[in-house]
């Protein structure tokens, strides 16, 4: 091969390598390749703490169901057997005032059942609350806001909103890679609840709560804020995207990579508008002067599946409508109608779409 040909080949490879580096791995919302677990059935646990709860839950449910069958049958039996017959002679039945033996029997049996429940409960509480996290467990800080979630990865230097991305763990306890969550609130009490992954834990202002996840299978797990926190509590939705280990690494890399600078005229116009109107007082975009912390971090907006914390799916139309008037989609939310002209919205949306 001539020197010129070799250089050309090298240049080719370099070019493609640069392309790979520059192109964000997910051109569309992250996590869509995993199963969408929309039905958050707590009886289909897919994470260790949820499974621990599930064991205790099944036991107590069966016990209670058994008691129900016994007592309800007794009630039906009594109602049928001791109803006043049509040919009743009008005499009063034998007047029984009580029986110590019977009283004892139906006191002792409930006590025994209670003892069993107490033992199971205490053990499960300890198992879950006192679980020791491995030193290298992924640590996430979840901060609740009215009505969105702020997610910080202090060890990775990532801040995102409304979606928690974690790597999948293993059913084998020796190979488990659980995730630790520190739960805080910036305003009122919220609650983190993704039923298939863990029981719920509240986010209380001025209190640091903790929980942990240890998922067995990949997927997009659906959850809700589970403590009434004001007008849009219903739309404070949450997704936990459990990646394969490789998928998680890719996501982290993509989150860390700064978004490409705006290219087209529309994008540049939108960029100018974004920074000259009060968008920056609430929102943060890494590597820029936008450092507002009141609203969600927008650095990697386009990698998310929804906007408005799950209020609507993230697509062109919804993004446009949101920027035009968020009150139309999520009335009462703390992003005001910015009174933008349609052309301004076009530009800003064009800019926002570069944030990937």
């Amino acid at each position, binding site marked *: 091969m001539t020197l010129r040909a070799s250089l050309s080949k090298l240049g080719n490879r370099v070019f493609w390598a640069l392309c790979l580096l520059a192109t964000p791995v997910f051109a569309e919302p992250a996590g869509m390749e995993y199963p969408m677990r929309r039905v958050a059935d707590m009886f289909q646990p897919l994470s260790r703490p949820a499974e621990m*709860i599930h064991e205790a839950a099944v036991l107590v449910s069966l016990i209670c169901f058994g008691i129900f069958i016994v007592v309800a049958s007794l009630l039906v039996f009594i109602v049928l057997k001791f109803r006043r017959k049509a040919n009743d002679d009008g005499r009063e039945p034998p007047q029984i005032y009580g029986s110590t033996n019977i009283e004892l029997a139906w006191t002792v049996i409930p006590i025994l059942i209670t003892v069993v429940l107490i033992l199971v*409960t205490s053990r499960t509480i300890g198992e879950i609350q006192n679980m020791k996290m491995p030193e290298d467990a992924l640590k996430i800080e979840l901060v609740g806001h009215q009505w969105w979630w702020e997610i910080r990865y202090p060890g990775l230097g990532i801040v995102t909103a409304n979606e928690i991305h974690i790597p999948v763990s293993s059913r084998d306890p020796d190979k488990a890679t659980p995730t630790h969550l520190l739960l805080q609130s910036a305003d009122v009490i919220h609650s983190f609840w993704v039923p298939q992954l863990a029981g719920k834990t509240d986010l209380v202002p001025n209190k640091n709560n903790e929980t942990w996840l240890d998922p067995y299978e990949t997927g997009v797990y659906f959850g809700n804020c589970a403590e009434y926190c004001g*007008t849009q509590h219903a739309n404070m939705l949450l997704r936990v995207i459990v990646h394969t280990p490789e998928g998680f690494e890719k996501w982290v890399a993509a989150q860390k990579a700064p978004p490409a600078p705006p290219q087209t005229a529309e994008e540049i116009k939108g960029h100018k508008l974004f920074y000259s109107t009060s968008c920056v007082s609430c929102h943060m975009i890494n590597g820029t002067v936008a450092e507002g912390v009141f609203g969600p971090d927008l650095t990697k907006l386009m990698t998310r599946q929804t906007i408005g914390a799950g209020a609507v799916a993230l697509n062109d139309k919804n993004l446009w409508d949101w920027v035009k008037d968020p009150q139309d989609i999520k009335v009462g939310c703390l992003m005001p109608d910015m009174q933008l002209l349609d052309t301004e919205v076009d530009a800003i949306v064009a800019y926002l779409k570069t944030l990937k």
Partner: protein
Amino acid sequence: MSSETIIDENFKAPEPERVGEERGSFTRIAQELVFTVDHKKLGLMYIGSGLLFFVVAGLMASLMRIQLFFPNSKFLEPDVFNRFFTMHGTAMVFLVGMPIIFGFANYLLPLMIGTRDMAFPRLNAFGFWVFFFSGLLLYFSYLAAPGLYAAGSAPDVGWFAYSPLTAKAFSRGHSTDYWTLSLLMGGIGSIATAINIIVTTLCLRCKGMTLGRMPLFVWLFLVVAFLVIIAMPPLSACQIMLLLDRYLGAKFFDTQAGGSAVLWQHFFWIFGHPEVYILILPGFAIASEVIPVFSRKPIFGYPIMVAASVMIAFISLGVWAHHMFTVGMTSMGNTFFAISTMIIAIPTGIKIFNWLGTMYGGKIRFDLPMMFCIGFLFQFLIAGLTGVMLSVAPFDWQLSDSYFVVAHFHYVLIGGLLYTIFAGIYYWYPKAFGKMPSTKLGHWHFWLFTIGFHMTFLPQHISGFLGMPRRIFTYEADRGWEIWNQISTIGVFIQMPGILFFVGNLIYSYFKGEKAGDDPWDAWTLEWSTTSPPPEYNFAKLPEVKSRRPLWDLKHPEDPDWKFE
């Protein structure tokens, strides 16, 4: 002494004045009701007002269920929905539950213990009017000028009003203040009535009625009254603290100043949990009167029933944080409250068994009061068992704040308390009005309401299992919740005609009901020894009793209770 009759059968009481029967002028009747201190009139006023608020709060619930029929429905705006669930819960507990149970207590206690009125008749009237005005104050919030968006109008912070959502910063305007002030007022009324109940029960019993010879109804209300005077002040206290925070800048719940959001929850539930026992124990009281009479046997295990009731009240003061399992208490704290909650299930279960034991070997008559009591037994069984499920703290970490809890407490309060209230109303209606309630209308009421009730609340257990949280004005599609919400909503429209039949029955029977004698059900406690309705002074001659069932002794002189008790 044994030759002295308990009640002078030859005495003919003068005809009691029946309100409404003579064509009295409206102003005369209104004047009488406004100024009355008679426990019977006040009792009926309590129950009547409670039923009025029941209809209003029930309509709110119906509208909420319409909103929840479809996912992403726009039938109700979010803030309207949020105000509805706040007002529905607050009204049902404080303006329906409490007044109706106090109404029953007021009407029946003096009659059951053989005295002429409550110990403090004027305090009684005061308690009623304070409650009534507190209800008007709460609903007045709707009219109070709405200001900034969500700044005025009715409270929307949930019936338990957790801080810091109720702080000035997050609840602007005065809606939260209406909630606070209305309940503070109502609390004073409740405490006044409770003190009246305690004093009446301890100090005015007729001759021979030792504590061990009181009807279980009276015992249970004595226990309820003690719970009220101990448990209501914590609510008043934290509400005063909330007002101080909101208006004088105090820092009780200000998390930025070192205050604790969780402290509100502790204080609220120290009140709130005993409160739900305050609500249900009167239901037990009614069941303990109705079930024996319609089974034709005395209550099985009277002493145990008393002991169990006292135990329930006592333990109920120590279970409150089972409402807070998710708030981040230590594992010790969670374990303690899980245990105490499970323990309280034991005396409660014993009571169910005792009622069954009463029915066993009896000759059950399925008159309306008994039908509702049987419904109560079945539904309260379910409610109690879902409560046991919730007491397992880790399971509660999933179930708390979900529709499973909503299903649980509606089974307790509707399936349990409301059914016994229906039973009690049908049972004592002839005594209060001298007319029998219509059985036919009552059957329509029972079946429609029961079918509708189960249809509404049974599926909510399932939507809870599938992750549906409480207090959401809408939900996403495809979460598996639609079908359960839809069945639930349809049930409402079956319950509604049931309630119409109930109200219709009350009105129809008043005018057209079959005339009732003194003792239409062949019962055994003292209220049935006087006329229907009783004269204002209750008894021509104050009775004297020798056993728990004085009328049984009268009717069966060869086999009186006092020989066996």
